[in-house]
């Protein structure tokens, strides 16, 4: 047992670090660290840098343009990109639809879609949730009716993250209304330019436009856009659910956020001294740092188990809950750190190109909105209550 990185792992970390030092655009890193808005172009610019290096599709087999990294290497890559302030990878194309296509798609689908994901030509979004089906996906209602060579799709999807940037959407649709709820669902790839699709922004409580509603009205989708077999979509969705589980806890992001918190609390002043020297505030920071330390080791233990051939199971659910609680605590402390200045909402300061004077400091403006935004962590991607249900059932067998 040696829980430190071995030499090969350390060498890989150095390689990642030197790549990030030289290739990660400074302007993008500054925005990420400052919690500022990222444009579609920022994301694409960084994606193309990664693609050129061959480090974009870290979860794909090599034959399709992926890299053969161990779980530990993936972990190191995630940690370091977070620490350097790289934009998070938007997962819908590269980490969600692609694995499904690779596993269940036709050769034509692979040939067509995968290169376009690698190149950044396609921006994918996810069409799972519906107004009446959040955690309970089995009750979804969007219908796809076969008519000759097409499906005719009608219905509505919601919480579609960054759907405003997307030109493709992968959807779970109901193709059999007679079957049991989970059996009549299919997995469909839909071009967002198809007539009948409308994207409507959802503005969240922090004033952000990050999620959308997507409406389908008699949308014609070629049958060749079906992935795998009709009515087997639930199986593919479940595959994806286990597939995307490592990294759910966001340990790397939390570590970066904790550093930021300490930086801020070192600059903020209380009674003439840095807030970070206030015993009560320092204790709260220390407690979350300790909890994060433990969660990081738990994450490494899960990764090591995957490395050893295991499949990350419901342990990830447990860690997802803990990880999101930690992240939310950090955002709570950041908001608290700036005291009365948590109230002002100078939206301009959050923009890409803000060059004016800052109301109080260059870091204050995004902190309260960010705190509210991060409430989503315990809701989306399977709420923490659902995660606990999973653990109770799968691990504890209750």
């Amino acid at each position: 047992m040696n829980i430190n990185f071995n030499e090969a792992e350390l060498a890989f970390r150095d390689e990642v670090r030197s790549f990030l030092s030289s290739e990660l655009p400074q302007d993008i890193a500054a925005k990420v660290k400052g919690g500022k808005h990222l444009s579609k172009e920022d994301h694409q610019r960084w994606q193309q840098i990664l693609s050129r290096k061959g480090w974009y599709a870290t979860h794909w087999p090599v034959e399709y343009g992926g890299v053969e990294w161990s779980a530990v290497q993936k972990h190191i890559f995630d940690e370091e990109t977070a620490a350097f302030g790289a934009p998070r990878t938007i997962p819908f194309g590269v980490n969600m639809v692609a694995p499904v296509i690779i596993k269940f798609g036709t050769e034509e689908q692979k040939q067509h879609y995968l290169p376009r994901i690698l190149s950044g030509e396609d921006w994918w979004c996810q069409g799972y949730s519906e107004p009446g089906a959040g955690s309970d996906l089995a009750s979804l209602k969007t219908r796809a009716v076969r008519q000759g060579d097409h499906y005719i799709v009608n219905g509505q999807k919601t919480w579609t993250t960054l759907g405003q940037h997307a030109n493709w959407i992968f959807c779970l649709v109901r193709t059999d209304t007679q079957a049991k709820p989970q059996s009549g669902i299919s997995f469909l790839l839909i071009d967002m330019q198809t007539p009948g699709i409308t994207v409507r922004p959802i503005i969240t409580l922090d004033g952000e436009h990050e999620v959308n509603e997507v409406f389908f009205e008699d949308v014609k989708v070629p049958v060749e856009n079906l992935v795998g077999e009709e009515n087997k979509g639930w199986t593919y969705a479940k595959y994806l659910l286990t597939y995307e589980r490592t990294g759910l806890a966001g340990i790397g992001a939390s570590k970066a956020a904790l550093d930021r918190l300490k930086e801020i609390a070192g600059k903020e002043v209380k009674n003439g001294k840095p807030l970070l020297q206030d015993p009560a505030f320092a204790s709260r920071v220390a407690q979350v740092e300790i909890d994060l330390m433990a969660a990081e080791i738990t994450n490494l233990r899960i990764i090591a188990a995957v490395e050893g051939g295991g499949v990350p199971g419901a342990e990830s659910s447990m860690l997802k809950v803990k990880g999101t609680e930690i992240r939310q605590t950090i955002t709570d402390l950041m908001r608290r750190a700036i005291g009365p200045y948590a109230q002002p909402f100078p939206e301009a300061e959050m923009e890409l190109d803000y060059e004016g004077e800052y109301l109080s400091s260059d870091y204050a403006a995004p902190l309260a909105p960010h705190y509210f935004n991060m409430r989503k962590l315990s809701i989306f991607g399977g709420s923490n209550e659902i995660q606990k249900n999973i653990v109770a059932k799968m691990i504890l067998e209750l």
Partner: protein
Amino acid sequence: MDFKLNEEQQMLQETAARLVRGEYDFEKRERFRQSDAGFSEAFWQQLSELGLTTVPFDEAHGGFGGGAVELQLIMTELGRGLCLEPYLQSIVFGGGLINQAGNDEQKNDLLPQIAAGTLKVAPALLEPQSRYNLHDVVTKAESDGDGYRLSGRKAVVIGGHCADKLIVSARTSGEQRSHDGISLFVIDGNASGLQRITYETIDGLKGCDLILDSVSVPASALLGPVGQAHAAIDYQAGRAIAAICAEAVGAMEESVNLTLEYLKARKQFGVPIGKFQVLQHRMVDMASELEQARSMAVLAASVADAEPGNRRDSILAAAKNVIGRAGQYISEQSVQLHGGIGMTWEYSGAHYAKRLVMINHQLGDDDHHLEAFVALMKTS
């Protein structure tokens, strides 16, 4: 011991409740918020016409002669409506400062106008370095002939954007965090050298930072004895704390109700989600925090007009601590139990969630007041 309202109080509560119910739904609030003033002048006028702006003032100043309990009733209804008007700043806190510290001339001049709603004032007491500490003051007021010249910056003056007059604390002597040497000045909103940096707040209010660049004021602008303003600031901040606690309770009640309704209406896995025991118990915890908050709002109101001293200070610190924690808990859980919908701008519940957390950033958060409570606690 009697928690019942008397007839007059019941009428006052009903008046406030009816007005808010009638004039302040969420869509209207969004319109008011987006207006230049950031609130409804018409609603402000109705508050005045119904006498609600006169409540805390003496009859001699055109007031109703009410106390903290009467303010509590009004603030709770304003909280329930997420009302945007600067009642707390102008009527409770600003008016209170003038009433306590002002001389007869100032009171006779200003209070009737404030009570009538025709003059709005806002206390400008915080500074960029002060956090919630009201005696951490570096803004300077230097003698200048018959008057004073003020320079410095005042931070996060909620309601300051629309105030006709600002009540500014400035140091006339003493060290940065000394209780002695702080003075109050009533300054015209359009005084030369006074700049307002106006902004919205994340919870939909408006406010400003004030930049004072050698602002000259006459001696008559001084509110109360020179260098001795701390007592009035501290006492009136206590009254404002009691009032904002009541506002928070109104917002919490609405937030809890919205969440409860949602649990009953929203179905998942074929049943209302309120059938899931974990969500039921969470809802019970929210209701329980609300009860604690209600109790502390009542207790705070019962001491807000009392003699200054340890007991009053302790209770007010305790109240704001409980309200801060309960507000954040209810806010976070209301969002969590709603799921995605609870995070959308177009849903009123999200705005209650924001207001409840932000109330913790006004007049001191739960950490600040826990520390204050400890300082007052007998530890030996």
